[in-house]
């Protein structure tokens, strides 16, 4: 057994190097840069300005939008996943749910520029049923809608997997013991699929906090998130120090969310 260990140790060099260079070093660099100002002097100013009202509002805003996006994704994804497990060819239907998520993100977002446009089909429909034309693009609604559209397959997937693993005998047992449909759902199905819901929340909430492409294209410059702020500091203002400071907080939020939505592992094997 010992021989085997040594035989693989040399080949692990590229992977270990990768961890060092592209996981540890980048995070360290971001932390380091957050302490420097535009002219390269050591400073705590970036942190001071992060706690100023502008960035505080931005963070709250960001969390609010991420919450809305995650909430609506969950509300629409759970029934979808549940009904999918009841279909005959469920793997095929699941695949059909996943296909749109493989289409380039930019193209899907671009489609909504046309769909929500002033002369687009949605407005034509609204006009037809008598509501009249509305400026849909560049609103909070369109931003949340498009984000939910983009993220919903990633919410459906883990929930579907956990529902699929659920032992149907448990549901029958609950029913036999006199639980109604709602009680069975609340007391049996939901707790047993909580892990799926948690990983769904994790894969939707964290990216939602840092969206910048959808914000720019769909919401104009109306919606600012932590993501747009970082992009702006790095690529427009070129203030890497401030950008890094926001990034440090985003990383912190990420770890907190991971900690809350993390699954309890048994035996050290991770699925």
């Amino acid at each position, binding site marked *: 057994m010992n021989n085997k260990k040594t035989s693989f140790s040399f080949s692990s060099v590229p992977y270990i190097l990768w961890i060092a260079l592209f996981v540890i070093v980048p995070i360290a660099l971001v932390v380091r840069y957050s302490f420097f100002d535009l002219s390269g002097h050591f400073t705590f100013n970036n942190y001071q300005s992060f706690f100023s009202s502008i960035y505080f509002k931005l963070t709250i805003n960001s969390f609010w939008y991420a919450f809305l996006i995650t909430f609506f994704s969950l509300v629409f994804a759970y029934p*979808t996943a549940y009904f999918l497990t009841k279909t005959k060819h469920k793997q095929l239907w699941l695949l059909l749910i996943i*296909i749109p998520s493989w289409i380039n993100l930019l193209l899907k977002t671009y489609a909504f520029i*046309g769909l929500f446009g002033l002369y687009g089909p949605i407005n034509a429909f609204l006009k037809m049923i008598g509501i009249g034309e509305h400026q849909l693009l560049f609103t909070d609604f369109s931003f949340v809608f498009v984000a939910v559209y983009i993220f919903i397959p990633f919410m459906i997937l883990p929930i579907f997997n956990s529902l699929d693993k659920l032992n149907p005998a448990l549901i029958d047992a609950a029913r036999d013991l006199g639980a109604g449909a709602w009680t069975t759902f609340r007391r049996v199905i939901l707790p047993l699929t909580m892990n799926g819901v948690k990983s769904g929340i994790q894969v939707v909430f964290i990216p939602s906090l840092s969206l910048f492409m959808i914000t720019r294209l769909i919401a104009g410059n109306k919606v600012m998130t932590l993501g747009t702020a970082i992009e702006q500091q790095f690529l427009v203002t070129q203030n890497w120090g401030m950008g890094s400071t926001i990034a440090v907080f985003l990383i912190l939020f990420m770890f907190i969310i991971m900690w809350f939505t993390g699954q309890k592992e048994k035996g050290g094997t991770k699925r």
Partner: protein
Amino acid sequence: MTKLRKLPKVYLTFVFIILYAPIFYLIFYSFNSGGTMSHFESMTFEHYAAVFEDKRLIIILINTIVIALLSALIATTIGVLGALTIAFMKNRSMRNAVLSLNNILIVSPDVIIGASFLILFTIVGVKLGFASVLISHIAFSIPIVVIMVLPKLQEMSPSLIDAAVDLGASKRDVLMRVVIPYIKPGILAGFFLALTYSLDDFAVTFFVTGNGFSTLSVEIYSMARAGITLTINALSGLIFLVTIVLVVGYYAINRKSKTPFAGVRK
């Protein structure tokens, strides 16, 4: 009873319509001679012709494909080595630590990856362009390959290796003729996911690409910011076709290996 059965069908139909409507809407208007996405004039293929006549766009397309294939290939190689490293680690807490580090890049928002890599490349002195984009794509694809290969390694019975060693196989033989064939479905699934990660990436590329180099996503972004051009629609028609081919390929592999979908996209 019929009422209960009807609701799921209606709901699922509704979800599928919403999911696919924007995609088919894009493709539908790619045939519009009118030049807008709101009024269909007449059927034309001119936008498809425009895609193939635009030399710059073709170069960008080739760039994107080269980056995707190269990065997926290299990431798969390093990722398989990484999975082997983790699987044969004796120390459990060490193994968990490495796994956590591995998963950081999967969970990290693209903006963070992009920004931190930009700092890294600037400090090390890598010129922003092809090299920086390729290296970033390799870097963010490695962990997903590890995640796809590792379960296969863990379900492999250790007695397989013991048997091979008892029968006189060298370490190299064990790896090439026992381990690799066994985990091959995982490797292929990892390769496919790395490929789609690279093709789909926008944010990281946007950060680390210089002025002269562009991939499809970045190009579509700048085109879309300028407004509606039906060339993008024609492109999406073509990309949809390619995606379907890729999905069918991935599905075929997945069916054989029974690896559950793990396509968690940021």
